């Protein structure tokens, strides 16, 4: 007689949507508002170069690219597992599995007008301009203005107020 359990068992699946990837994508898009890239990088596509492993983030950024622009520039997402110095981009995002490359990538991109973003403890000390970190379960970011200047970017002081400053 009592078969309500059949109704109960049919539903309820956890959604596999990666909230972290979406939040990182929103952060990255936000960052573009606070920096000025050199003129040579203001033409063509605005390239976000992801290095390392995070398929959800790449998907999310491609979704972002299909919906938003940076100024008048279309956003283009490039992705490789390891750093390729021949890729010219406005943003390089080094994921944790390639975090050991921060110092090298930072030195190779000096004055090239590339915002280097990483996701590893101490990355700003190794040359990254921005570094994601987790505080009380929330994603925050460190900011090194001096690294951004070294990278050839014009910075906005409002940004300092929003970040954890490491300089």
């Amino acid at each position, binding site marked *: *007689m*009592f*078969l*309500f*359990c059949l*109704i*109960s*068992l*049919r*539903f*309820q*699946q*956890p*959604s*596999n*949507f*990666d*909230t*972290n990837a*979406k*939040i990182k*994508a*929103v*952060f990255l*898009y*936000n960052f573009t508002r606070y920096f000025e890239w050199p003129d040579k990088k203001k033409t063509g596509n605005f390239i976000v170069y992801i290095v390392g492993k995070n*398929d*959800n983030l790449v998907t999310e950024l491609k979704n*972002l690219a299909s*919906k*938003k622009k940076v100024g008048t520039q279309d956003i283009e997402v490039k992705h490789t597992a390891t750093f390729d110095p021949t890729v010219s981009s406005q943003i390089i995002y080094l994921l944790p599995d390639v975090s050991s490359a921060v110092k090298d990538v930072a030195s190779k991109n000096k004055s090239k007008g590339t915002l280097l973003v990483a996701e590893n403890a101490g990355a700003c000390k190794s040359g990254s301009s921005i570094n994601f970190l*987790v505080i*009380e*379960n*929330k*994603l925050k970011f460190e900011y090194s203005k001096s690294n951004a200047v070294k990278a050839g970017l014009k910075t906005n002081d409002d940004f300092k107020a*929003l970040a954890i400053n490491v300089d």
Partner: protein
Amino acid sequence: MNRLRFILKNLCLTLLLGVAAGGFAQIDKLNRAQQLLQARTPELAQPAIDSVIKNSETKSDPVSWTTRAYIYFEIYKKAEKQKLNSALRDTIISSIKTSNALKPDNDYKNNNNKLLVSLSTHYYNIAKTLLQDSLNDVRSQQAYNSCKELYLLAKPDTNFVARDIEYYVAVGSVFSNIFNNDNKNTKAHDIAKIAHLKVFDLQPDNAPANMNMGLMYLNQGINLVKSLDYGADLSQIDAIQENIVKLAKQSEQFILKVYRKDNKNPKAVQALYYIYRMLNDAAKQEEFQKKSKELNIKLD
């Protein structure tokens, strides 16, 4: 169905014997009602039996009332079995109650109880239909309570705890699913929550209810992030993160109850991986990623 026919046949035979000693006029009417019932013309038997239960000679006889219940039951079955509110059903129930109050012998008492159980089953089916097809929790619960009430009238020693749990988990599942698909539907959220809280009162560690509650909070957090515009400013991101951390932690406490009871529950393992990812807890995320691999659970 066959069982009811058997009961009806026995009832008619017993009635024929039982009323033999009574007043002839009323016996005639009761006999006629019986014969019409047996002839499957309960509509014709109805006026006869209604007269029998008004007569001073036969109105205090439980046989008259049980017969009336069976005659009305046959009419009800054709037209009102699926209705939540049925005057015919009310008449059957009141006739049975009157018969029982007049202390019938065991055979009649059993027949009354069988009829009550049948009516209870009908209420159950109505409760199910109202929940599944009409998504009408109020009417469904009304039907379920009536189902319970009649069943307990027939079998007072029945323990309904397990059935209550099953029913309220079903209500919670249906409405939490609606809420998961549309987070703006706060009514569905509230109905699901109330149903699950009823389950927790009866069985705090009930796995499906804890799972449903946990997933409601988790999916609420996920939908919040999904709805976030890429152009949202940093203060909005902060506010969203504040909310999703709260939701993920609420979700975690429910899902952990399921996991602690069964650490191989695939849904719990999967949900905990997503929760810890939402909480940016890399160590626990990795732990549950490994666990998922061991259990062949597909993530992402």
